[in-house]
């Protein structure tokens, strides 16, 4: 298998898209309580094998890795799990290029982790925002994340992968919290406890949720751009004023009897709730309102609360039932987000395959256990969707009291030791050499 010209006909694409269609159908049924049958598993695994072939033909770093492992061409999915899962592939650029603003070189790097070699007009590009816009004009949709290590990742999506990111959630989203007795969906208000996003994973999730709301409000109206993240610049916000406007938004929704969806990272919601209690005192959101968290505590680990203390704080501040506090889990490379059910399980929709890896970095498909968490995402059409997350988790499977079945993550999801910053047992400091 050789790398093909990006313009060459993608002979596997039609079959891949058919697998996608079947997976989405199976996922809709799964979300209604039906078990995901062997057909869904077969479609998913076929799609993943097709993607292996496509990546081998079209993504240079994947091609080289597979060639080095003598795994070009058709392989068993088990071989992909053991030999071809990738970690932080979207951070493998030379950080000096970013600091120097060498967007031509960064674009060339992007072409090594992507099915295309982007060729945007880079004339006059001043920063990451400009670069992102020029790539977009070339059909490359880049999202970024700051990551806990401080090195930004850049995930390039083509239109198909972007559409999957936008549409996959709708196949399994639980809307029962706002379903009226007649079956229709009630409008809701959305409060995002952070800034607007300019292509950054979790902030964009907030944007997407806000778009579905009747009314939305961002604690910080300003957009947190990639350039601001790179410069380490914070947003100029008066917290008192921002909180005051957010409290007014909650009160208005309550006055009008409209349910509220509150979204943010745990540390953002913790600070908001503390401000409620320290300021006006408890606010009562409309009964049936929900809280959705995502992104974990990350570098705010010093503020971390236990799950029960955290949901207790939300209940005290906003009157939202702990059972309606949902935590989401995803990574910037995935086209799905997992969410907790009332039993605290992060259910994995049939759209993707999850696997845990042992210390030798091997794993078994379909088996549970505790280890390094990885996903194989068949909807990552334009980049390697075989992802080691850098997190450690416990994978289990079976029917859940919430009505869903199949695999789920249980317990705490935490950074896997030694995968980021702390190598060799912490013997040496993080140092570029």
């Amino acid at each position, binding site marked *: 298998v050789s790398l093909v010209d990006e313009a060459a006909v993608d002979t596997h694409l039609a079959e891949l898209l058919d697998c996608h269609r079947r997976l989405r159908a199976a996922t809709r049924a799964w979300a209604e309580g039906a078990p995901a049958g062997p057909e869904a598993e077969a479609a998913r695994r076929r799609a993943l094998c097709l993607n292996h072939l496509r990546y081998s033909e079209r993504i240079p*770093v994947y091609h080289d*890795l597979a060639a080095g492992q003598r795994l070009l061409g058709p392989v068993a999915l088990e071989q992909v799990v053991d030999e071809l899962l990738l970690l*932080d592939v979207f951070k493998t650029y030379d*950080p000096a290029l970013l600091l120097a603003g060498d967007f031509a070189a960064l674009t060339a790097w992007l072409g090594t982790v992507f099915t295309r070699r982007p060729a945007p007009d880079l004339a006059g590009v001043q920063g990451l925002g400009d670069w992102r816009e020029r790539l977009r004009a070339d059909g490359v949709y880049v999202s970024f994340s700051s990551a806990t290590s401080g090195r930004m990742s850049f995930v390039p999506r083509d239109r198909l992968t972007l559409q999957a990111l936008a549409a996959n959630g709708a196949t399994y989203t639980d809307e029962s919290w706002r379903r009226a007795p007649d079956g229709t969906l009630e409008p809701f208000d959305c409060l995002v406890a952070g800034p607007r996003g300019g292509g950054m994973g979790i902030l964009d999730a907030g944007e997407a949720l806000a778009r579905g709301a009747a009314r939305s409000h961002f604690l910080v109206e300003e957009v947190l751009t990639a350039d601001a993240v790179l410069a380490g610049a914070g947003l100029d916000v008066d917290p008192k004023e921002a909180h005051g406007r957010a409290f007014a938004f909650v009160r208005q929704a309550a006055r009008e009897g409209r349910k509220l969806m509150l979204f943010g990272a745990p540390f953002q919601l913790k600070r908001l709730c503390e401000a409620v209690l320290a300021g006006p005192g408890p606010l009562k959101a409309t009964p049936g309102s929900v809280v959705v968290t995502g992104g974990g505590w990350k570098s705010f680990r010093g503020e971390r609360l236990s799950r029960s203390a955290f949901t207790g704080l939300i209940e005290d501040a906003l009157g939202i039932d702990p059972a309606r506090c949902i935590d989401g889990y995803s990574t910037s490379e995935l086209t799905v987000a997992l969410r907790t059910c009332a039993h605290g399980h992060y259910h994995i929709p049939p759209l993707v395959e999850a696997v845990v890896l*042992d210390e*030798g*970095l091997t794993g078994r498909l379909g088996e549970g256990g505790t280890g390094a968490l990885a996903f194989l995402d068949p909807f990552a059409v334009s980049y390697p969707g075989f992802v080691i997350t850098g997190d450690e988790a416990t994978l289990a499977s079976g029917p859940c009291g919430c009505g869903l079945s199949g695999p789920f993550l249980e317990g705490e999801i935490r950074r896997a030791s030694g995968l980021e910053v702390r*190598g060799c047992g*912490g013997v040496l400091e*993080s140092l570029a050499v």
Partner: protein
Amino acid sequence: VSTHAAALDLEDVAVDDGQGVVRVPQLVKGEPLLATRITRDEIRRAEPAGPDYGTVFRVGDATVRREPVYDAATAAPTGEVRYLVFARPDPARLVETDPAALARTLYALPFAEVQDFAEALRLALARSRGSLLAQAGAAQVADPRALAIALDLLPALLDRGSLAEAVDRDLGMDGVPGTRLLDGWVAVDAVAPPGFTARIGQRLGRAPGTMRPSVRAMPTRQLHITAGNSPMVPFLSFLRGLMTKGACTLKSAADTTETAALLGAALRAADPQHPITRHTSVVYWPGGDPTIEGPLFAPGAYDRVVVWGSAETVRSVRQRSTARTVVLAPRYGVSLVGREAQDRLPEAAHRACIDTLIWEQKACTASLVHYVEGTEREALAYCEALQRALAQWDALMPRPLVRAQIGRLRLLRRGPLLQGTWFENGRGADLRSAVVYTPVPFDLALHPMSRFVVVRRVETLEAALPWIGSAVATAGVFPACAMMALRDALAAAGVGQVFPLGDGERVWAGKPHDGMRILSELVSWVSSAEEGPEGEAL
């Protein structure tokens, strides 16, 4: 001191209770400390889940460490697990509370007696080698490789002449050998005029007399917190305590408890009643235990704290200890390979391997990163030569990688070093060593230190200098003539030692370590003066 020190028995180093349970003896001020016997069933009931390697937990008053058993012939894990059991040392017994008594006994020993004791220690170890290794190999309760390393190298380190030479060189001043300064007050050939206040006081009618200044290198109470990157670290740290006549508490790391037990047993075999033995403790506890470390880090408990190890350990100790701290921080080695190597690649690679494999790449001086001057093609050619040289070492000294190390290398290949060009010896579970050429910088914290070399290309050797700082312990340069041009710049950047490539392991008595004359840091430099003729005019 007896020159007929008894040979050690394996029971002195590791007490085999059967079923893979081994109690490890410790030493507290010359007295042996051994945990009460516990059974494997008792251990299994208290055992937490986790990986086989390095899990530490409590069973009653004992500390238990679970670790894999390695095959003596192949050095590969057998799949079996053994449990090392340690008694918990009482911190109150470790601390020396009577400095005056120390001044009369340990501190008052002439250095010649320290040498005599070292000789007895040397004999005890030398005489024990054969039987200890034979017993260890047969019983499988102690790692024969770790014991062999210690037993082979230690006697040479205890050479009485070398010890004196090291002290004389490190502590010496004004042409006076260090041993004299350690043994007593030494007059200083200097004028010590009276101070400003005394001159004013002269107006009250009494002229200050002349003084003959003197100085002494006073021994100290020392707490040594050692690292586990090499089985020799506890010995090297103890040796510095011994050479400075320090009253030492030596904490071994979890990975070096066997060789630490060997040291404790050898001290008793040399002379259990000797002041050095009576004022030395060799113990283990899991780092960070506040019930033990609280009293040890309390103000006044020790005069010096020597801390080896990770940045995290160093930070933790510095935050808690008020004693003067000698930090032997985590450092690493680099190799600088000039363009001339292209004509002599096998030689350069052979030399680079020697610097790379010091203590299985775990030593602070071991080379982890090689900067190669030349084109990318030349850098890749060097990588190939290095891969071949490493393969020779893999055959000469087989050291199978444990599964976690293989996992780490696989992770690097599929993440941070994905853009690199890899040269591996062995595949999959049989991976033995690897070289990677990377066009982008690498985060050193991810280096697995397991026969693994990161190669970076530079246009000139000088171009490597921005990547080199005070975290670099050793720089090996090829060819040797290139070293002369780089030496000052490397030293100015904070590099601890600069050698021709392949010579980074060389030591000599009194050699500085990490930019310090360490023995000088371990003594208290005390000044005094004796009165000259009374009333003599200034």
